[in-house]
């Protein structure tokens, strides 16, 4: 497939405006500025683009809701708080193709009649901050940002807001809190940010990859775009593939490419020709799959049918040297650390589950621990403001459902199924 999101990134100067213009950069913006805002929204709706941050909400519908709100100003926020473990798909756009993101944001701002935008960038990406700020400066100097963009009377201002190491700020209402200078703690919805967001005004929060798809939709039109990949949730998708594969990295492929194709055709297969044991398809918060699930198309429609989710499209591949109890424990340590503390079930439950997993992993597991973990997980599900708690619960439930033998082995034999000498992860 021809690359669009990762186009030209092999060029060492791909981040510069000069190089971006040479490969047709900002042509979609020029086209969009001739269009009526409502027509751009209609086009994005017809294209069937679904948000690439994890939830997969239809972007055109979100925009439609925001555009119906009559309050101004409206804020457009790019969610670049890529914190889901296993995910590094937005990084090449931020570091190597920043003008694609800016172009996508300016088109979106024109469609949404927003005059002020922020890129909420995670604190762990200091290099991306340098690249983005330089690109923004170039865009201002050339008139692609400012009060009168490309001489068409459209105004949009953009700046980078750097996060400071809180995973929860990837959740849109916590992100808004963080931009407002608060502790990032999710708000109950409704009201939705499209009506009551940053500083109480309508706010559209879209993921980096979502916004980077906008110039393509404007350029080729909704019909052609909808023909890419799975027609139910079309478009190009970035997959970040990591852990036990020969060629880990970010791959741009049509939505609906199967896990098997991603792992074996693109990422070179399981490292050293070893046996595939398990795959997490969409970042650490998505339930783990067994090897018989790898013919599943990677998209928002088919993964839920297999009991998992597309999430951020972060494929984590585990071979037979990996102890899955340990992976589950490490994931839970992450959730415990990142729980914002607002909802009791998540704040307490993640710590309890980490504690139990730690003793199972360490050979001190007790009879009944698996049931106890399930009980705690089910006591979190659906009882929190945001999906962090659900994610943590789903991870434990997924591992227990698919790999209960391994957990039982740990508890009964007080040791790991995987031979310690050949074991990855210590």
């Amino acid at each position: 497939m021809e690359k669009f999101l990762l186009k030209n990134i092999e060029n060492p100067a791909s981040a510069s405006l000069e190089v971006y213009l040479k490969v047709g950069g900002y042509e979609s913006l020029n086209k969009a500025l001739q269009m009526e805002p409502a027509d751009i929204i209609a086009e994005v709706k017809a294209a069937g683009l679904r948000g690439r941050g994890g939830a997969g909400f239809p972007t055109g519908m979100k925009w439609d809701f925001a555009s119906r709100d009559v309050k101004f100003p409206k804020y457009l926020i790019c969610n670049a708080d890529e914190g889901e473990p296993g995910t590094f798909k937005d990084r090449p756009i931020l570091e190597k193709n920043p003008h694609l993101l800016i172009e996508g944001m300016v088109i979106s701002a024109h469609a949404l009649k927003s005059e002020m935008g922020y890129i909420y960038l995670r604190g762990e990406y200091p290099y991306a901050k340098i690249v983005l700020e330089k690109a923004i400066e170039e865009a201002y100097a050339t008139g692609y940002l400012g009060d009168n963009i490309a001489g068409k009377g459209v105004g949009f201002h953009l700046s980078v807001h750097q996060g400071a190491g809180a995973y929860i700020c990837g959740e849109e209402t916590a992100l808004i809190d963080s931009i407002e200078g608060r502790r990032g703690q999710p708000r109950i919805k409704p009201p939705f940010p499209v009506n009551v967001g940053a500083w109480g005004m309508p706010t559209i929060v879209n993921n980096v990859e979502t916004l980077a798809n906008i110039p393509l939709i404007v350029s080729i039109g909704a019909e052609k775009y909808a023909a890419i990949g799975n027609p139910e949730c079309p478009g190009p998708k970035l997959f970040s593939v990591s852990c036990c594969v020969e060629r880990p990295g970010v791959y741009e492929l049509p939505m609906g490419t199967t896990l098997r194709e991603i792992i074996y055709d693109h990422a070179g297969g399981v490292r050293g020709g070893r046996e595939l044991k398990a795959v997490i398809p969409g970042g650490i918060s998505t339930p783990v799959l067994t090897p018989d699930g790898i013919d599943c198309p990677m998209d928002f429609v088919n993964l839920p049918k297999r009991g998992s989710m597309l999430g951020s499209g972060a494929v984590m591949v585990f071979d037979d040297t990996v102890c899955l109890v340990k992976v589950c424990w490490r994931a839970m340590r992450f959730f415990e650390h990142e729980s914002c503390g607002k909802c009791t079930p998540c704040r307490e439950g993640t710590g309890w589950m980490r504690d139990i997993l730690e003793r199972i992993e360490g050979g001190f597991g007790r009879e009944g621990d698996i049931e106890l973990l399930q009980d705690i997980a089910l006591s979190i599900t659906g009882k929190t403001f945001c999906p962090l708690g659900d994610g943590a619960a789903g991870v434990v439930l997924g591992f227990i459902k698919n790999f209960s033998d391994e957990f039982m082995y740990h508890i009964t034999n007080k040791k790991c199924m995987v031979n310690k000498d050949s074991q990855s992860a210590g």
Partner: protein
Amino acid sequence: MDIFEEIRALTEKYPDRRGALLPALYIAQEDAGWLSQEALERVSSALNLPQATVKGVATFYSMYKHRPMGRHLIQLCTNVACMIMGAESLVDFLKGKYGLEPGGTTGDGRFSLVIMECIGACDRAPAMLVDTDFHSDLTEGNIVEILEEYE
């Protein structure tokens, strides 16, 4: 320029001065590498926000530091991908080689070590940030070479 003025200038980017709080805390942390009580008070007065508000926010985010750090900050990821690719043995190695514990600082004040959650470099794991420099595909062999560059 004094940080007071620098922070005041930031407020222009936001409709409300409190929006500038996160970047202001970064500015206040830049010189000393951590946020002292004086630094927090400076932020509080520059943004005209209660000290409790400033401290409440500053302690929520893990990248703000509340005690002195070494001259160089090692932020090593040990999340799942980095763990599988050997990050835990690197933690043990740093302990042996530099006497550096997670959350600790070397006796000579050269390095501090902070264990990170995912830093988005899973394809080149294990990975770390030293100050703002990114280093990946770490091994016990190359981590020493890399760290020797930081005095």
